[in-house]
């Protein structure tokens, strides 16, 4: 078994530096503090938008750096995009349904 794997010790892994991970960690921590503080500022309807925008930025940092998607194969990236697309279909179709139910005056809607 040992001879069999030795051919493949071609360390093809991309190994990020500790510094990179520390910076990502700090960015995530700062974003957490910022999102908490900005929640108390009256932005009206934009409070949700800002909160989600910060959350999406944090998610992208985790996905790209901690989950190594930057180095993933094209297939993995495509599968991820497909997953995101399906998630938006779930959200989008349900919202259009709930949003339009009262339009036609269907009894018992």
């Amino acid at each position, binding site marked *: 078994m040992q001879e069999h794997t030795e051919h493949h010790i071609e360390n093809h892994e991309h190994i990020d530096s500790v510094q990179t991970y520390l910076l990502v960690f700090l960015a995530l921590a700062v974003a*957490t503090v910022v*999102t*908490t503080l900005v929640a108390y500022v009256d932005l009206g309807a934009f409070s949700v938008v800002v909160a989600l925008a910060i959350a999406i930025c944090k998610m992208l940092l*985790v996905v790209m750096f901690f989950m190594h998607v930057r180095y*993933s194969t094209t297939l993995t990236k495509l599968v991820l995009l497909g997953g995101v697309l399906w998630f938006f279909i779930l*959200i989008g179709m349900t919202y259009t349904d*709930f949003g339009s139910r009262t339009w036609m005056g269907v009894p018992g809607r």
Partner: protein
Amino acid sequence: MHSEEQTLALREQFDTAAQQKDASTLGMWIFLITEVMFFGGMFLAYSIYRAKFPEVFAIASTSLNVKIGAANTLVLICSSFTMVMAVRASQLGKLRDIVWWLVATLILGFTFLAVKAFEWNEKFELHHVPGMANFHLNGVGASMQGPASIFFSLYFAMTGLHALHMVVGVGILTWLIIETKRGKFSAVYMTPVDIAGLYWHFVDIVWIFLFPLLYLIDRHLNIQ
């Protein structure tokens, strides 16, 4: 059952170790996408009920403890950092470091769960547990106690499901620590550490969305 040697070896259906690793990574991501849809349904239900009962949801959401929520978010982010450091140590084949970083991740995971248990206990004390006869949310009229209990049903379902994932994650970490100590992993074969890392970070991401949506988005209304 595979013996340890067979597990470490390149399985016959793959040409290279890199291909075998890529297949594992892809498989994990497909599982995580099913998890996105799983949690997605709950986020969807939450957003629709919030749109339907905005005032009640604002009062209920404001009753949650922001300081504890934010602190717990930081705990999870720390745990994601220690997890990625464990994966890095495994890439470098530093077995002792893997164990230390995994133990740190485990401790942070338990910390998160302990804080969560404290928060849930607080809900019982405040009579904010849906389905219990004494359920009552202050500042909400008698006719709107129903929608208020919908908020807390969703709160318990979403944070509960998230905590369940944390419990599973803690189990996986414990298994990894034992297997690392038994010398199962090396720089050549560290796929389980990497895959567990993906799972742990995913659970972190779920919380990254739960925290603002449950605790923060109605704070600007200055209800309390």
